């Protein structure tokens, strides 16, 4: 069983610089065809200072930093048993190339269903930029299947 004492645990901040080549790689990987995500001129014409990070890109911060792996270690959830149950984003302002975002996450809840066959971890995050402005909030439901 996942230790419920981890409820309230605050993960170390993850810092993610929004980089042009990474956004182009992400665009290729998801088959993006909208030039706003790959062409600076199109992005500027759409009102952004530079290429915007697409809606789900901020999820990369805690993967890149290793914070997610360390959390799973702490919770003793092996990757082979991990499922992503739900994901939510609330957006406050764009993050574009040249911005650096910081993600700070907290474990909100841990519970189980089906007599412990499924365990759930609720994680919430605040994403801020280099001006300490709120960019987005994220909520993840992680599932450990036994």
């Amino acid at each position, binding site marked *: 069983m996942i230790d419920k004492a981890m409820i309230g645990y605050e993960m170390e901040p993850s810092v993610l610089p929004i980089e042009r080549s990474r956004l182009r790689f*992400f665009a290729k*990987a998801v088959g993006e065809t*909208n030039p706003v995500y790959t062409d600076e001129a199109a992005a500027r014409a759409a009102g952004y200072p530079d290429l915007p990070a*697409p*809606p*789900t890109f901020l999820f990369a911060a805690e*993967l890149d930093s290793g914070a997610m792996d360390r959390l799973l270690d702490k919770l003793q959830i092996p990757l082979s048993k991990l499922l992503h149950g739900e994901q939510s984003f609330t957006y406050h302002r764009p993050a574009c190339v040249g911005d650096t975002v910081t993600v700070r996450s907290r474990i909100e809840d841990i519970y189980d269903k089906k007599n412990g066959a499924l365990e759930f971890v609720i994680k919430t995050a605040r994403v801020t930029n280099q001006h300490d402005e709120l960019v987005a909030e994220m909520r993840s439901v992680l599932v450990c299947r036994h």
Partner: protein
Amino acid sequence: MSAPTFDSVQLGDELPPLQLPTVDRTMLALFGGASGDHNAVHIDIDFARRAGMPDVFAQGMLGMAWLGRLLTQWAPQSSLRRFDVRFQGITHLGHRMVCSGKVVEKLHHEGVPCVRIEIQATNQYGQIKTAGEALVALS
């Protein structure tokens, strides 16, 4: 196509659907690298089999990224307020996903005219793999 406006959008309106190419290993490897999700269960068949799966399978966030494309090809990303999904089933190799969305509510959120859109990603067998909703501000 011109951007949708609050007055022009009607309940039941469908977003232009997004048909994705057949899920293959290259797609999963590229998304693993680009998204930062290096979980080997999505890229290494040996690891996937040791984890009890018949083969590698798609990252949940790949399905969500496709739904993000569905939304941002309809309205600019700067108008996206909320984006929530549930991962309901595993997307396997060979699946041909279609992302679709429908306007289900017109409302004011924090004083701003918005529409609530139900969204889903469905494979060629009609199985819904990712479902959720988005809140989009329209002027």
